[in-house]
């Protein structure tokens, strides 16, 4: 029995003298592995042009549908990305993201990757929807953001998010997805993708009560 006590105490003593594994987070932080899948990054080319071409393939591949992309046409004199098309809006709902990396896999230009950032908690749920300005790699010669003014103009706050006027269609990915959920995929659920190339001969029916 004495032997066992000595053995136990020896182990304890050894551990007492070894360096602890824990760190004083958040003052101290450990490096994350290079292939860590944390918050996304939108990359640039070396000349500063954005890699993202707004093709929405990441959004199409995302299993949870948390990416929202709106594309626009490049001004050839002052392009945002090489080619004709760029993303004028790019939002990811991090609350819904499962950090699977499928978006990075789908991207034809390697514009999006999952980065080392893992501190994603926030006091407000809206803030967990990150915008293009937040996701984009900063670049010395670029203005902090090339994010254009909201297409709807007035009503947008500093983050570019718009106030939701009651009765106005919601615009932000966050609200959009929720609104769609609640209304069961919108007013014409089920019509999507069905080639309606013949005169419809169904009865007028109410799929929805507008009241």
């Amino acid at each position, binding site marked *: 029995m004495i032997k066992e006590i000595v053995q136990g105490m020896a182990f304890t003593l050894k551990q007492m003298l070894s360096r602890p594994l824990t760190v004083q987070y958040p003052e101290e932080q450990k490096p994350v592995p290079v292939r860590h899948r944390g918050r996304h990054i939108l990359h640039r080319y070396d000349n500063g042009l954005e890699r993202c071409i707004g*093709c929405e393939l990441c959004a199409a591949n995302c299993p949870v549908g948390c990416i929202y992309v709106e594309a626009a046409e490049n001004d050839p004199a002052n392009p945002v990305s090489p080619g004709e098309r760029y993303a004028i809006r790019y939002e990811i709902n991090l609350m819904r993201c499962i950090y699977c990396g499928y978006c990075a896999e789908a991207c034809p230009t390697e514009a999006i990757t999952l980065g080392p950032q893992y501190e994603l908690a926030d006091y407000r749920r809206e803030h967990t929807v990150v915008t293009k300005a937040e996701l984009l790699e900063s670049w010395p010669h670029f203005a902090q953001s090339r994010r254009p003014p909201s297409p709807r103009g007035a009503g947008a706050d500093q983050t570019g998010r718009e106030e939701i006027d009651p009765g106005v*269609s919601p615009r932000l990915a966050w609200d959009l997805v929720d609104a769609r959920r609640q209304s069961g995929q919108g007013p014409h659920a089920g019509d999507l993708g069905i080639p309606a190339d013949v005169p419809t001969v169904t009865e*007028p029916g109410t799929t929805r009560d507008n009241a």
Partner: protein
Amino acid sequence: MTQTPAAPGPDDGRVGVTIDGREVRVPKGTLVLDAATELGIHIPIYCAHAKLDPVAVCRMCLVHIEKFPKPQPACATTVAEGMVVTTNNAEVTKLREGVLEFLLVNHPLDCPVCDRGGECDLQDFTFRYGPGTSRFPITEKVHFAKALPLSQHIELDQERCILCWRCVRYYDEITGEKEIVLQQRGVQTLVTTFNGEQLKSNFQGNLPEVCPVGALTHREYRFRARPWELQRAPSVCPECSYGCNINADSRDFEIKRFASRDNPLVDDMWLCDRGRYSFPQWNTSERVRRPQLRPRGGEQRDVTAVEAISAAARELRAVVDQHGSGAVGVLGSALNTNEELWLLGRLARDVIGTPHIDHQLEPFEKLDPAEHALGIADIEECDALVVLGAEPEAEAPVLTLRLFKAERKRGARVHRLDHGADPSRIASAVRGAKTIGVIADETNRAHAARVAAAITGGAVRRLTVTRGVNGRGAKDMGVLPGLAAGYRSAPSGKHGREILEAAASGALRALLILGPNPALETAGDVLQRALARADSVVVIDSRPGVCAGAATVLIPGHAFFEKHGTVTNLEGRVQRIRPALPPATPTPTETRVLSSLAAELGARDWDRGEPSAVNRALRAALAPYAAAGNGGRATWVAEAVA
């Protein structure tokens, strides 16, 4: 290979063919391609198009047919009795792979930025029938112009063109305008406009739909959405009374494009640019959103829909009590659905008891349902067609394509005449024709009637191009002075302009306006005075405008793409519209507002006013609508049924 000739049946004009071991009997003259489609066998095509004549230039559809020494294009080979076709053997697979490999040699890797990506035949067929790899080393491709605007509507990417000729043939065969050509030859062949001019056609918007790839795209739809995100609402084009079928494709509660929805009886899959590119107006956020009371001299305040409806009923009842029911004027609109207009007519005549109801400004005298007897598809059956003035084709542009089809396919003579043309001269011009169609717009109806009367020696049928998407429905539903629903005679009343004038002079004390009514807003000054003078102006409207601005009771309405209902086109075809967008207001839909208003005014037998229930009641009351169902023609004269 064993040959299995289908047993020759009775001579019913059909022949039996065997495709991939399955037999089918199809009419003589059917293309192998269509016979295969009948069996559900897919044959990839590029140059073939259901509405264009075969040219067999792309060789994508090559199939093996027994007894033919070489593979045959399915899109240009007609079936013969006992023909045995194979579409799924190694030979055909190899041919398809070869064609695709060639097409891709110089095709750019644009799919991620190409508007066609996701609904592109080149993508789809490469995925389904392609070789998977290319044997051509990665060398520089042949380059042409990209993002070349051909007009304000159309963008051309010459690199993406697969030289199927469809666009060229569309201009040759469908519109006759010949604006696009293929230049150069061999690998340098490129699609361009004649002399590099801008496109001028009124039907350019069909090009991107005809093009199987992303070479021709819409400028208005450029990078707006990916096809897989679009929510599709089969509806009707709201721009004119022709009633072309469309799919209103929306993304994130915004309509991004109108796509054609082939109805061979109406649009034949072609849309005009005015209609196709009219979609942005439905995305406007300038909307009437809240019910409001704005008593004359009092303070304006937001109320609930229920309060607004009671207030409207109170005001209308007060006017009726004081000045009689004839002091109320009721105005509908050609943008309303049949259900709304039917309720509005009943509300005016049966509940309020006023004969003053109309949907447009001008009087519409001696309305005769026979003037809509000529159906759109019947135009092709006519030997001669008389079009009075430029207005019919300006108001319903797709009519032009139907006339061109009648000319090209059937050899019909189309006489485009001045509206003042002498009826007897027209009659002599069409002498000898067995079936004659006379087409005019609403202002030239009377002249068209004289022309029709002057023509002897042939069956004459008339078509009047009505104004507004549901102008015909408004007439059928009796939103007219002196004519109740179903063209039953009713006590005569004032027409639109007279209603406004009477209100401006104080003879009418209340106005009930169901909008939006762009025609009404053209009345200008008299409208302003009428609205200012009337004691009560009850407006149900979706857009803030002159009427909504002057309302004493304002009730938000639903826009065309926010409600269910039916509209009737100029030939009487009753077609369904469906919501593509969520309503901009929580107020009940117009049919329910009108029903509640009727109930408040003392009507006992009205139900809640669900569009479907109203539609049922409407069809129970109007036999032609019951017969038309959804998609059929409501005909009011025996002759038109022929």
